[in-house]
């Protein structure tokens, strides 16, 4: 089969899958499919049997190709969506630190949240954004939103839209401009942060919807970082947490925590250990831990089972890979 035929076939299959998923969503089939614990365990058993089969083939000297790995990962990610297995999520110290930092803020404190990511990183960062905004707004903290990425402000709106459906928040009757504002996107990367150190309004003359800075009750007296009690940065790259630390934290003494993609999070531990960051949410598990703490179980918690399965599958394949490696005799050097 030619590459083009394969591509068309894949596109066709994906399209069919999307149509089924869309219809499932519209007619509510997807949400109603929940495996009982027994069925869940059977699915887990089948996956394990599949892995054992792969291991046996590997021992027989027949190596699998990458498509088999992809298939197992796909199954491991999708199946848990329908499973009813609960997991105990334990809070890591860096997540607890972030929670404590926000929890000790007095009511009315101003929290700056910078959305420095775009849709590709949303699966990891959006749950963090929602849980963080939910916690701030439900605890009467005032939230000022901005973005150094063009799509950041839109992601913030999506997060706000999602949390406002929560009954507790809806009952509070939160008011835009008074309890939270979205200042929108500003081009200029770290230069924006630097200029905000002197004057916010020089960078954000209007908010996301075009209202003048001075007309917004929440921010009209907010001049610079000295008026901000805590800042939270959601970052997926450049400009992101590193730039915030280098400019806002180091030069202006801003107290800041961050939420990063799992790939980027390890780099942030250097800043966390040095005290330049107060709290860190790393990847999906960081989001899930924070959701547990703030009692807002969202997508982070929901997807943790998938993450658990995916990690186990990767570990299983690393073991299988090493079995193949030693079986081929190359491991004798060890």
């Amino acid at each position: 089969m030619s590459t083009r035929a394969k591509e068309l076939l894949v596109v066709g299959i994906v399209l069919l899958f999307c149509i089924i998923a869309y219809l499932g969503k519209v007619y509510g089939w997807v949400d109603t499919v929940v495996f009982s614990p027994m069925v869940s365990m059977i699915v887990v058993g089948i996956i394990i049997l599949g892995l054992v089969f792969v291991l046996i083939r590997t021992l027989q000297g027949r190596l699998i190709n990458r498509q088999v790995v992809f298939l197992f990962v796909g199954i491991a990610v999708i199946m848990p969506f329908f499973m009813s297995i609960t997991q105990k999520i334990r809070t890591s110290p860096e997540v607890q630190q972030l929670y404590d930092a926000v929890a000790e803020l007095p009511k009315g404190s101003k929290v700056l949240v910078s959305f420095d990511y775009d849709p590709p990183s949303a699966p990891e960062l959006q749950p963090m954004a929602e849980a963080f905004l939910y916690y701030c707004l439900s605890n009467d903290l005032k939230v000022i939103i901005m973005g150094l990425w063009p799509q950041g402000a839109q992601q913030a709106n999506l997060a706000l839209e999602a949390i406002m459906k929560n009954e507790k928040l809806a009952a509070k009757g939160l008011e835009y401009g008074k309890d939270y504002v979205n200042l929108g996107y500003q081009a200029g990367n770290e230069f924006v942060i630097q200029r905000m150190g002197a004057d916010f309004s020089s960078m954000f003359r209007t908010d996301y919807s075009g209202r003048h800075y001075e007309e917004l009750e929440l921010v009209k007296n907010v001049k610079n970082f000295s008026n901000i009690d805590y800042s939270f940065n959601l970052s997926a790259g450049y400009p992101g947490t590193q730039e915030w630390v280098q400019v806002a934290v180091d030069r202006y003494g801003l107290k800041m925590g961050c939420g990063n993609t799992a790939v980027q999070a390890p780099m942030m531990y250097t800043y966390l250990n040095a005290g330049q960051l107060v709290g860190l949410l790393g990847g999906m598990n960081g989001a899930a831990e924070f959701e547990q703490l703030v009692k807002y179980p969202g997508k982070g918690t929901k997807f943790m089972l998938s993450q658990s399965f995916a990690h186990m599958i990767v570990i299983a394949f690393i073991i299988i890979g090493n079995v193949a490696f030693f079986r081929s005799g190359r491991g004798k050097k060890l």
Partner: protein
Amino acid sequence: MNLQLVIRSRLFVGLAQVCFFLFLLVNLGPLAFAQDEPVPTQLVDSTPLNPPTNIEVADTPNDAGGSITIRWTEPIPPEGTAIKGYYILRAEAVGNEQGQFDVVGETSTGSSELLDGNVVDTLNYYYRVAVIYSATGVNGLEVEALAESGISRMVSSSAQWFDWRRINVFVGVIFLCGFILYYISRAKAGKKLFIRKIAGLEAVDEAVGRATEMGKKIYFIPGTQDMDNVQTIAGVTILGRVAEVAATYDTYLEVPVSRSLVLVTAKEIVKEAYSKVGRPDAFHEDQVHYLTDDQFGYAAGIDGMVVREKPATIFFMGAFYAESLILAETGNSIGAIQIAGTAMPSQLPFFVAACDYTLIGEELFAASAYLAREPKLLGSLKGQDVGKAIILFSIVIGVLLETFGVWRFSSLFGVLD
């Protein structure tokens, strides 16, 4: 907002409430608290409210002017009350008198400092700080009241010619640049400098040669960042060398880029490289082409090209983010020889796992010196190594001093106050 008016109105309402307090509570409680302004109650009539004291105002040091720092001592809140925050009021000086006070900032409780970054250097100002007290009223609703400090001394802002908080960075930069310049001058004077072998760069010729043998293309991916990123500059520097080798072997080199400015630069570099080896006719304008600024759109575009055209060799040189593994793993799947180089610590493991050779961090920056073997460039590497030796030495000293509690050595390396 004119706070004087606000405060006056609040005091007025407060006095009225002292007189009609019981009446309001019993009959009109909800209506009274539904007013726009916070209503002082027993906060006013029972206990005196302490205002902030020791108002200190000064020009913010080490800045570009236009900023005044206000500090105060937080008052002790009377029993049953809490401090909710502070208003900072400012008045312009008119002769020796102060003009009208306006709110210019607010902070929450726990703060005793505010930076007013909206002043004009040529003008003089006076400041006051008002504390916002809150308490729970008799009917369980929160009530607020203000207590205002005295007027500060007159103050004005000015710009400074040196940021003394950065003196440690300045000294570091002078030393490091000094070393680099010293070794460059030594290299120019003819001193031979040793540079260790970098496998990834040694393999450039081999990788291009392989593509020639197979009669397939070479791809060069200069990262997803713009020309203002030093990694991109380092990447396109290597591109020049790769283009020369490719032109010599008459192998087609394709450079898909994700930034317009990189497009212009890379095109110029490849063109010059082809001219340099005497093959200007072999250069095609479309060899260097733009795909998209979008990170994953770019990754998808390249993946598609790689899968369809199956290049023999792929170079990844520059700044990469999450797309690194997507690109490198696709290249690996078609069996291309891959050489990567980046200074993004989080992406290095992916390149190491999926590529044949990886230039780790500083090796990317050393590449141009390594490939050109020009004494001046090699000299800069030597200077950089001396800087590294000093940092290593400092780390050892710092660890010893801090472990034994002799002196907080790390304080030298922070932003100095």
